[in-house]
């Protein structure tokens, strides 16, 4: 038949995949460096406000000197604003103090140095927020942080 066809079987040569691990490792390291651990699964819906003069607290987070609490409307329905403390939902501001004391016990630093970062939905009313703040003040956890996003254009 054709002049050019050579005899014998000829398979497609295998793709060299020896560089694949390198690429994947590169991606892996990128994500390890550029991201931080998720604190907890969200049980409340939160849209945190935007601010133009916010401070980065990531370094504190890496030192384990920040505790996070969330206030917003529950994801699975309900109109009442609720406080999420780790995996638990509550409406009582007194349990905030109990939760905070438990958290601090496992840390080496004194309670007054450990920041409580509050991620609060914009629509939450100040009555609840100041209740939480008072509760923290009672146990001398005075350093708080109002979590916010950086506003892109001032």
């Amino acid at each position: 038949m054709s002049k050019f066809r050579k005899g014998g079987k000829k398979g497609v040569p295998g793709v060299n995949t020896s560089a694949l691990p390198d690429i994947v490792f590169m991606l892996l390291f990128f994500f390890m460096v550029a991201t931080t651990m998720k604190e907890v699964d969200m049980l409340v819906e939160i849209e945190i406000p935007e601010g133009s003069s916010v401070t980065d607290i990531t370094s504190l987070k890496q030192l384990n000197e920040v505790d996070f609490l969330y206030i917003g409307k529950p994801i699975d329905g309900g109109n009442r604003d609720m406080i999420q403390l780790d995996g638990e939902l509550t409406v009582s501001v007194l349990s905030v103090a109990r939760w905070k004391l438990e958290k601090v016990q496992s840390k080496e630093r004194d309670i007054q140095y450990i920041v409580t970062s509050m991620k609060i939905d914009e629509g939450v009313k100040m009555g609840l927020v100041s209740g939480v703040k008072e509760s923290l003040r009672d146990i001398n956890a005075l350093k708080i942080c109002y979590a916010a996003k950086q506003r892109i254009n001032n």
Partner: protein
Amino acid sequence: MAKAKREIPEINAGSMADIAFLLLIFFLVTTTMDKDKGIIRNMPQKLENNVQDVIVKQRNILNVMANNDDLLLVRNEYVEVEDIYDLAREFYEMNKGGVEKDGNFPMWNFYDLNTVKQRIAEFEAQLKESPENKFVEKELENWKDREEIILNVPDIRAKGGYYEISKFATISLSNQIQTSYGLYFQVQDQLQRAIDDMRNEISKELFDGQIFTEVDAKDDRAKTEEDLLLIKTVKQLVPQRIAEAKIKN
């Protein structure tokens, strides 16, 4: 006799990619990209016994009130959130440098080395009489900071002293129960931006263009002596005193 060359069998690295993928997917799932940011505030300590109310002149207070309908009242006038920045700066800077432009805004006092030394001596004497008095201790510390500033900051030393806003100047925030957190946060943010900007301007002026917020954001262990002096000076010159009133119905 020469040893026979033995070939070392190559390690099969084919599953390396699988392992790396596994790790990659783990990190993708358990981490988040967004940085944690926010406005940090120190709440005042809870007082054991009721302290007497201190009467402060009206001129020394910037009253910011947010009501149940999310309306803002600053010094008894309705304003928008965006105006707070200018109002706060005006409050701080109206009588800047000791020029009494408007009697409705806080006074600026001049501190020179002699006055400061005199005050330190006075408070040290007081502390000897009542060693446990927290208030006197705090005042003494404050005056010692001022002495340190006058002695160590070149520009201030050259002038023999500096102007500082009245120690009573305070921004007072009050809310009602139904005020939304969104508005409260925006007020805090505007105030923070005003104070940050003023602090940055001062630190640029006195410390060769260094920016206060950048120096302050450094890790505590990375701060040098100069950084600490800068922070102390700027905080003394532009104090951040935000008082929050008890929430109203």
